[in-house]
Every structure is written in C-alpha cells, then in structure tokens.
C-alpha cells in the first residue's frame, strides 16, 4: 500500500489503480466485525436484506415472522464500538396471521418508499415515513421475488416472480399488472432487471432454467441460457437448462455485462449477459441447501471482483472471473439466506435463519480498532498511575501535626 501511495504521488500510476487495489484488498480480507454489530430485532429467520442506493446507509430487512426493520448503519455518534440501532420496525404487517416476507427492496430513487413481498401472496408498496402500506397487489401464489430496475427512466415496472410459473410486471403508475411473461414451467425463484439495459430482465426458477427477456418483444423470452453452450444438449426435445437443479440465486454484475447464477446442483455459473453464453468458469463445489431464493452478492469496482454466495451456515467468497476460492466466512449459527455488499465501505451484511444480521468488515479495520483499544487502555492506565502517584506522595495528615506543633 505504501509503495502504491508513493507511486500515485509521483504520478507513475493513475489514482484509479490505487483505489481499485485498496478496494480489492478490503474485499479479500473480510472477517466478522469485532466492533460493529446490528441490533437483533427480528424473531424469525431473515429472508432478505437491502441497502439503500443513495447513501448506502439504511439497512432494510424482512424476516419470516413478517416483520420489517430498518437499521441505521451510519449512526451520528463517532464511537469506535457501534451497535446499529433500528430506526423503525413493522411487525405483523399482514394483520393477525404471520406470513413470511420473502423479498424486500428499497425504491431505487430515494428512501421515501420500499417494496415487500412474501407468503401473503401480495406485493406491498410502503411509505417509509408513515410506515403504512400505500398500495398492494395480489397474486395467485407465494411471491418469491420481486425487483425494480435501478436504472430505468422509461418505465417503473416491478417484476414479480411467484410460485405460479408466469412472471408478472406491475406498473405502479397504472396500479395493476401490465405484462405476463410465460416461459417457465415451474415456480420462479428470482427475478432481476439488468443493470445496463433497462428493458432486459432475467428470471430463474425451479425448472432448472434461466430466461432472459426483452420486455418490449411480444414473442416470449429472448434467450434460454444453456449450460453446455449447445454441445451435448443437442437433443431437440431436451430443454436447455442452466443448472442440473433448481436455480435459486441470480445477480447481474454492477456493469451489467455478466450474470451470475447459483443452483441447487451446488454450482455457481457465470454468463455473458449479451450472448447468453456460459463463460465456463469453474467455481468448484459451493454447497447450496436453500430450497427457496438465496440472495447472492457481488462486489463492485475491485480489480478481480468477488462473489459472496450463501453456502449453508457459511458465506463462500470466490473470484468472479477466475473461479478461485478466496475465503469462507464463518459466523452464522444456522443457514445464511441473504447477503448484501456495500460498495462504498466494502462491508458485507448477511442475514440468516439464526435471526441475526452480521456485519463483515475488512480485517484492517479490526486491527485499527484493536490499536484504538490499546491506546485507550494505555491512556486510562496512565491516568490511574498518575492518581496513584499523587496519592502516594500526598500526605493528608501532616497539616494536622503541624497544627499541633
């Protein structure tokens, strides 16, 4: 780091290179944070977390006991040891019965509203300030996933995937579902808009398939991703599959050029988002126990970017383009359901069935914190020794004698 700083100072390298290197180093050395944690509010397993796009500050989480909580990850007090307090919470959002919240997402433009969906067969749009449901849409089945495009300027559609095989697009302006996308044979686990093309949508489901859609085309899906790139699946009747098991994780890279999928055949796969070709990166065996959507996270602006994949009670960190395993993050007591990466501070937040949200911070920050603790204890010891010294040298009874004399 010192060498790079020197080189940057003398103008040998661009500032961007230094930034990339530092971001990558921080991504590589994540560990369970010793000085930051999230206040435990949930009473059920956490199914989905999201961080707001504007400030990367408010952490939204939805749990299986139908509660929704917002935590503030940048509290105003500048202490080193921090517990992220919850700002507000909604418990029992669906009346008397508890329905699990499966997916939760901030409105991409501001924190004024957020969307949630789950086992109550509904997609709800919430007003954050009043904590009331502003609008809701009903579907015929458990809503596993919904997503709103972060870059769209021409539409404000929410894609919804549920236990029925059709994907629906809800227009918030019209107040109803406008499109139905038919193509899957079974329940749809994850839907995700591209982060580059606002009309491109990717969906995956229990029928082992990943479909790419252009929502302007009326013909159906654009591409069905094929894991063998058309080789041994040359048989015409055999449908093209992306995995040999249900696909329950899907994420576009931040530049929108690639797509990462995670299947119950314990494989991660990387796809070219434009051609739909399998990039044939072999990530090895990444254990996937989840039988519903598993939220994977990707780092951004690192020089080799990394994938964070929930794997039973651990999170596997693997190199996105090389496929090498970097580390395994161990900390949860039960299976991990979701994780989200903060691109600015390189923190990772993960939620699991043990009802905890854990904060993973770069280990260099932990070292800083330990140094800070050492300084603090040294200071306090210094003070104490000073008072002890003064106490030892002070004579409290001499004046009394002097008076007698």
């Amino acid at each position, binding site marked *: 780091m010192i060498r*790079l700083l020197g080189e940057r100072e003398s103008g040998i390298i661009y500032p961007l290179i230094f930034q990339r290197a530092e971001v990558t180093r921080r991504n*590589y050395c994540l560990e369970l944070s010793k000085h930051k944690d999230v206040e435990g509010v949930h009473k059920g397993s956490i199914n989905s977390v999201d961080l707001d796009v504007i400030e990367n500050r408010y952490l939204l989480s939805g749990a299986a006991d139908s509660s929704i909580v917002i935590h503030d990850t940048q509290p105003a007090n500048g202490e080193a040891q921090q517990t992220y307090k919850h700002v507000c919470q909604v418990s029992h959002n669906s009346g008397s019965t508890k329905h699990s919240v499966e997916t939760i997402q901030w409105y991409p433009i501001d924190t004024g509203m957020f969307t949630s969906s789950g086992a109550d067969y509904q997609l709800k749009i919430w007003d954050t300030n009043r904590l009331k449901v502003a609008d809701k849409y009903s579907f015929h089945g458990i809503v596993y996933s919904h997503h709103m495009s972060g870059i769209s300027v021409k539409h404000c559609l929410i894609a919804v995937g549920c236990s029925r095989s059709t994907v629906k697009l809800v227009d918030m302006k019209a107040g109803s579902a406008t499109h139905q996308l038919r193509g899957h044979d079974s329940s749809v686990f994850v839907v995700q808009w591209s982060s580059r093309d606002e009309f491109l949508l990717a969906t995956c489901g229990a029928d082992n398939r990943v479909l790419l859609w252009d929502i302007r085309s009326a013909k159906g899906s654009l591409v069905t991703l094929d894991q063998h790139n058309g*080789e041994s699946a040359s048989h015409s009747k055999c449908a093209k599959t992306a995995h040999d098991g249900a696909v329950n994780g899907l994420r576009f890279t931040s530049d929108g050029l690639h797509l990462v999928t995670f299947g119950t055949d314990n494989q991660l796969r990387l796809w070219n988002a434009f051609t739909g070709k399998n990039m*044939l990166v072999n990530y090895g*065996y990444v254990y996937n126990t989840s039988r519903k959507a598993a939220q994977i996270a990707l780092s951004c602006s690192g*020089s080799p970017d990394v994938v964070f994949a929930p794997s039973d009670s651990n999170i596997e960190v693997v190199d996105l383009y090389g496929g090498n395993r970097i580390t395994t993050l161990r900390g949860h007591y039960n299976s991990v359901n979701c994780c989200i990466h903060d691109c600015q501070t390189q923190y990772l937040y993960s939620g699991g069935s043990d009802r905890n949200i854990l904060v993973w911070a770069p280990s260099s920050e932990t070292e800083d914190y330990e140094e800070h603790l050492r300084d603090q204890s040294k200071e306090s010891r210094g003070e104490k020794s000073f008072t002890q010294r003064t106490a030892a040298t002070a004579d409290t009874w001499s004046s009394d004698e002097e008076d007698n004399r």
Partner: protein
Amino acid sequence: MSRKRSLLPDLYKSKRKYVPSASCSTENNVSTSQGGPTGLSDLLTDTRTALMLLRSMFPEGKFENRLPPIILKHQVYSYVKNRTLADKQMNDMRASGEIKMFKLGAEAGERSLVFTNKVNSCIVGQCTDISLDKDRLVKDFGFTDLEITQLVHASVLTVRDVGSWWLSIPNAGIFLKTFIRGRKAVLTMIRKSKYREVLKNDLQKRRWPRLARLGILYHIHDVIGADLVDCISTTSGELLRLRE
C-alpha cells in the same frame, strides 16, 4: 498474520518469486521419488501432464486389458488448482481430438476422459461430443437402425432418450463397480480415523482391500477433486479432512 497476507490481491504482491536453488530442487526430487507425487503437485500447472500422470496410475493389467485407462475429469483438479484453466485446456484437447469425453461417473454431472489413441472405434474416434442423436448417426456415419442396435449391444452407445444416445466405453460397468467400491473404501478409511482426518502419506501406506482394484492413489485424487475432502497443507505433508 501469514494467512492474511496470502489473501492480498496480486497487485500488492512483490514481483519477486521464490526460485528454489539447485540443492533444494534435488532434495525435492528425492522426496518425490519416495513419497509419490506430493512434491510434484506444486509444480504442475499443465493439464496434459496431470492427465498423463493420472493415466499412469490406472492399473490396466488388473482389468486384463479390457479397459482403456479411464480418468475422471475432476481428478485433474487435485493437481491443477485453477479449475477454469483446467477445464479450458481439457476442452481444447477434446476439440483437437486428443482426448475423448464420456458421461460416466457416480453422479449425473460427472465426466470421464480417455486418451484417443487407446480407443479403437470408428464413431468414437470421429465424434467430439458426448452424445449423439439419430440424425447424426444415420446421415453423417451412414448407420442403419440394425447397426445402431448392434452398437448398443456392444455397449459403444448407451440409450439416453428416444433417438438419442450417450457415447460409452465397452465394459464400463466393470470399471464403475470397482470405482464406486473403492471410493466408498477410501471415505470409510478417512471417516474411521481420528477426527475424521488423515495424512495423505499415512493413507497411502495403509492396507488396501483387494477387491478395489484401482489403487489408492487413484482414489485419493478422486476424493480430493470431487471436493469430498478438504486438502490442508501441513508441515508433515497434506492432510485430508472429511467434509461435513
């Protein structure tokens, strides 16, 4: 601290690389000849060399030369740590016709390899894919239905679906039976040892059941490559720990 250092991205690492001196390398060779290819595994980056090594481990004589040396695809990963690179090189070798790939293994996704010069079959020699459909067989190779049936009887082809066949190796059943028995034996050995972990060198010295004819080294590479055990390097050699 040293573990943390190893996680740094390449940009931070100094460009100087460790070059073993002459005396050190001869020592390495001696240890290699004694304890199998443990010292060699660090040096191997070439998939072809790994394949050659694995082929030499296959005991052809024990199968009365009825089988060509079969290598499982994931066994290569125990030598070549970069799986993406290994896959790419194997695909290149397959495209150039140097090796053949078959769908053969304990699980559905597993693939096995055979060097082409060991296979004496006309369609296997010409086809680079792992599966064939009827169009291809009839038009490109000029087979009649009867001949296809004969090929299936000779187990050069196995049925995949209506009008579609997997390529296969005659007598593959004998291999698979032995292979599954051997894998079970290795995993039982590791499971029964203390803390479910064992040094690779110790494991190689153990008594090996005679019915599992493939040899212990072949199976060690199989369980490492299939991610059934974790491979941890210690000061006294590699340690294999059973994955939960």
